[in-house]
Every structure is written in C-alpha cells, then in structure tokens.
C-alpha cells in the first residue's frame, strides 16, 4: 500500500486571496458587532425590567433560555420562510443567542453590588438614577463584561453558520471549501475560515478583558 501524502494546505492560496480574506474578516466583525450591540440594548432593557419587577425575571430567563436551546441551523431555518436569505435573518438568530447570557450577567452583576455601598450612596443624597449609573453599573461592570465576553466568543463562532443563508463572514470560506473538499484549495479554505474565526474570538475576548481593566481602575488597586 502506498501512502498518499496529499497536501492539506496550499500556502499560495492565502497570499493570492488576502483582499477577499480581509473583506470576510470585516464582514464577520460587522455581523458580530451588530448582534452584540442590539443584544446588549435588548438585554439592558429586559434586565432593567427584571430588576424593577422581580417576578418578571423567571419568564424572561425561560423565554431567552428556550431561544438559546434551539440549534442555530434550526433557528435560521425557522426564520428563512419569514425573512428570507437576508442579513436580518442572520442578525435575529445571532441576537437571540446573546440574550440569555447577557441578561443573566447584568442581573447577577447588579444584584452583587454590596447593600452597604448602596446605603452609603443613598445617605450621601444619590437619587435612583444617579445610584444606578454612578454606583451600581460601574460596580457590576466586571460581571457584565464577563457576560459580554462569553456572548462575543459564542457569536463569532455562530456567524460562520450564517454562511448557509448566504452571509457568514469567514464561514463563506468554510462553505466554499466544503463545495470543493476534494482539492487542496478546498481544505485550505476550510482550515483558514475555521482558524481565523478562532483567532478573532480570542482577540475580541482579550480586547474585552483589557477594556474591562481600563474601565475599572479601582479593581486593579486591590491586586497590588
């Protein structure tokens, strides 16, 4: 038996397609950014509702938990007959998956603010709004950013699936590679699409961590 040592990666392909790779990285980041932005806005509103009216928290987590448990391809498939093969379909799906993680972390973060600090603030004359924006939100920030990081990493992975409905960012390469899987170019495309998606996830994860450090300078003093 002769071992067929067929090349898996065609390094030349990468150099020849740098422009297209950049385009798809940008598309990937835009799809992720919109999903996180819209997801955060909806989550803040729903978390505020849950914090104001405690009894709404259970149905909110139940609803977003159900959305979260639907397999991504099935969720996109549910939407295609209604919204078609569009960016809207992709974004509705992607936003749905961020909600549970974000709402849970926002509520847990605000709940975790020590009561004596809130009392001290009220004693110093802080009103409800000022208390929320100047005390509760900054102190809850590490927990909220932790949720953002999980949501971001998850979303970046899921964006690749939207290639199947004609979007996809780096998922585009994975799908095109799959259509010519028997060739070295095909396996190269699949590998590059997957690897770059992981790299993006790691970069965004570390970026959000650094952002959290920058936004909470008081947390660093504790360590020193």
């Amino acid at each position, binding site marked *: 038996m002769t071992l067929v040592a067929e090349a898996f990666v065609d390094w030349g392909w990468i150099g020849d397609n740098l422009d297209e790779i950049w385009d798809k990285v940008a598309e990937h980041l835009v799809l992720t950014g919109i999903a996180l932005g819209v997801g955060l806005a909806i989550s803040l509103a729903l978390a505020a509702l849950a914090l104001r009216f405690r009894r709404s928290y259970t149905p909110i987590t139940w609803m977003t938990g159900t959305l979260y448990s639907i397999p991504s391809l*099935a969720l996109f498939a549910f939407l*295609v007959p209604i919204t078609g093969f569009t960016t809207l379909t992709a974004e509705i799906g992607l936003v749905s998956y961020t909600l549970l993680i974000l709402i849970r972390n926002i509520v847990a973060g605000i709940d975790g603010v020590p009561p004596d600090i809130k009392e001290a603030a009220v004693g110093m004359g802080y009103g409800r709004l000022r208390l929320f924006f100047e005390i509760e939100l900054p102190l809850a920030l590490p927990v909220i950013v932790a949720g953002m990081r999980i949501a971001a990493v998850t979303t970046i992975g899921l964006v690749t699936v939207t290639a199947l409905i004609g979007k996809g960012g780096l998922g585009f390469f994975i799908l095109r590679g799959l259509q010519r899987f028997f060739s070295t170019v095909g396996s190269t495309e699949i590998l590059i699409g997957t690897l770059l998606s992981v790299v993006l996830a790691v970069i965004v994860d570390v970026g959000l961590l650094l952002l959290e450090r920058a936004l909470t300078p008081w947390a660093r003093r504790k360590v020193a």
Partner: protein
Amino acid sequence: MAEFLTDLLAWFGDNWSGSTGYITRTWEHLWVSGWAVLAAMGVAMPLASWLGHARRGGILAISVVNVGRALPSFGIVALSLPVTIRIARNVPFIDSGLGFLPTFVALFALALPPIFTNTYTGVRNVSPEAVEAARGMGFRGTGILWKVELPLASPVILAGIRTSSVQVVATATLGALVAYGGLGRYIIDGFALRDNVTIFAGALLVAALSVLTEVAFSIAERWLVPRPLRNVGTQQRPEAAASVAR
C-alpha cells in the same frame, strides 16, 4: 399562511417512511450522536477523573473550556471532511471518508470539552474532608476514586454528559453538509431548493429532538444520581462549565 400550514401538515403525512423519511432520518441523527458521545466519554472521563483525583492539570481544564467555546461547530464539521477523506484513502478497511465518519469525528471533538471539564471539576471539588474520612476508613487511591470521589461527583459529571449530548444532537444537523443523513438533510436540501415547507419541517424536527434529548437526560439524571445526592433542588442543579450555543 393557512396554505403554508396545510402544506406543512401534508409534509409530515407524506414523509414519515422510507429511507428518506423522518423516522429513518431521526434514527441516523441519534446513531451518530450516540457513538460520538460514547467515544468522548471513553476518552475524556478516565483522563479527567485521574487528573482530578491527582489534583493536577487545572490550567489544562481551564484552557479546554475556553478553546471549546471558541471552536466554530460549522468549521469543525467541515474540517473533518478533508481529514477523513485522506484517512479513507490510506486505510484499507475504511471504505468511505464521506457521511458517517466526518460527522462522527467532528461531533466527538465537540463532545469532549464539557465531559472533560465537568468530570475534572466534579472530582477535584469533592470535599477534602470526605476524602480524608475515606482514607481513615482504609480506602486507598483507586478505591477513593471509585467509591467516594466519582459517586460524589456524579451529578456534575452527568450534567457534563447532558450538555455534550444536547450540543452533539444540535450539531449533528450539520452532518448533512458532509453527505451524512440525519434531520439536517431536510434543512440543507430545503435551502438548496428554496423549499420553505421542507426547511420549516426540518427545523421543527431538529428543535423537537434537541428538546427531547434535554428532557430525557434530566429524567435519566434523576435516576442515575446516588440517592443521598438527589433532591438538591432545581436551584442547585449543576450546570456544565463549558456550555456553548450551537
């Protein structure tokens, strides 16, 4: 709308039997998922319980969680295909690198992180007092692992297996892309034909199977967890550390 619902109902009446019917497709879906989870258990559990028992490899466990979350399932399924094609070409007793094999390889890889981390943290977090007491009663190394640590860790380990299984059943949908059957067939073929009824029916079947898997495991967990550890209440139901959307 009404017409769509009528078509949908008709679809379920017309497509239940035969080699492309949804009974066969469901069976194919569960077949590859089951083997993938079993294989992942066989690899991850011995390694993780030994590391947890020896109280080593904490950094490994944390990196498994993070890497597991960043892996795009679509990419892993796609990546398996050129790998298995090359394997099939060079190994005489494997006749096809398409279909079952790439789906199995991808699902196996995706099933590993939750089972590994939950087994590891479960064993590692058994209270030192319990281990100390067992030692005082004359248990030694493997005896402590089998009779004390693993039973006490079982709720967390089972939660890991549940998370893996639900994720694997969800991702098995993508097996249709590498020429496997399974319920994803309807969605992928429906996309190609722009056939909304088939797409929607496939989505319903996939979502239903995913929910049923979750429910089946919740019930199984209630029976498999040792009696004194049951009834900890839903509040304390252990969640997998490496849970991801799929």
